[in-house]
């Protein structure tokens, strides 16, 4: 599974990255986590609010940082 975190480096983008790392560690799944910081690449996903979360090239979240538990559900749903 491939997880991308879209964000230009704002505080919430870092929070999301932390939360994703925790969720993935808790779920003990094999996932490659990438950070996308280039604005043009971010825009190619069609989101307008950072941070964005992309799982297997599909946008699943934008503009908010969910709790680690919510993230686990989201990841499980899109795995």
């Amino acid at each position, binding site marked *: 599974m491939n997880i991308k975190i879209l964000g*230009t480096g*704002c505080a919430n983008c870092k929070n999301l990255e932390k939360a994703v790392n925790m969720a993935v560690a808790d779920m003990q799944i094999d996932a490659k986590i990438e950070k996308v910081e280039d604005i*043009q690449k971010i825009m190619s*996903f069609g*989101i307008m609010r*950072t941070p964005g979360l992309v799982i297997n090239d599909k946008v699943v979240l934008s*503009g*908010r940082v969910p709790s680690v538990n919510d993230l686990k559900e989201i990841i499980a749903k899109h795995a």
Partner: protein
Amino acid sequence: MIQTNLDTMKLKFLIKPLFLISIWFVIYHYLQPLADWLIYSALGMSQGDHFAEALWFFVYEFPKVMLLLGLIIFFVGIIRSYFTAERTRTALEGKKTFTGNVMASLLGIVTPFCSCSAIPLFLGFVEAGVPLGVTFSFLIAAPMINEVAVVLLYGMFGWKVALIYVTTGLSIAIVAGWIIGLLKLEKWVEPWVYETKVGQQDWDEGTISFETRIQMGYDAIREIVGKVWLYVALGIVVGAGAHGYVPEEFMANLMGKSTWYSVPLSVLIGIPLYSNAAGIVPIVSVLIEKGASLGTALAFMMSVIGLSLPEMVILRKVLKLPLIFTFIGVVAFGILVVGYIFNYVL
């Protein structure tokens, strides 16, 4: 498991907010007698004493403002969960100017916005065919008019000043965006903006349950109150200190009605200064108490919140300098007009 718990969950998630809101009203209602009791009975300080007055001001104002903030942010957080940037863009697509400017300014108030998202938002709007001037109306209204500013103004000056701020702020956003649209400044947008391919991924979070929306209200409280409480506390400490110790007419010469240059001076000082509403409103309340006129103080506040150097630096990535200066100029002029209207007409 989710199915069987559905009924109890339905009850549970409504009981908690209702319970908290009732407690809120009880505390808010007894705040003033509580502050009186604490300062004048428990601590035995005498009324009229400068230090006692300053302490009372803090003990009463700080919890009052924080309570108001918490309540409003909670409801705004829920309301905002219905307004996403994507929906706002769809609503603004292909809108004629002026109508578009009015809508964009209004949507700017309710759409969640943070200056760190200004670039993706700008690209998303422009790519979708939202006119440049309409996009600017949104970018002006979104940071300037927000729940924190409105609550603090209401808490410290009453509803009239809060209403004045919202209506004049909206007017500036509408008219400034409209003028920028008329000037046809698309040539001063960085070319890469128009070359960027914005993906058409129609992502949908699915239907968000009302329970999740309430949770988003709590999240908003935690995030925003966590960010602003210190500014509010500092602002009120400064206010409480100035309350008793700085002479009444201290600011009258510099920021009073009779000083013709007070409004442009305040706007100029406000542009490089950057603060959120939480930090600036208590300062503005001190300025007014010490003789600054309402128009000058409002102009100062709008300039500090609405025109900020960090946001200009961010916008520089998508806008060429002449457009940034035009943007600053048009908005500053609007603020100037508002300041003068309040100083001389009303």
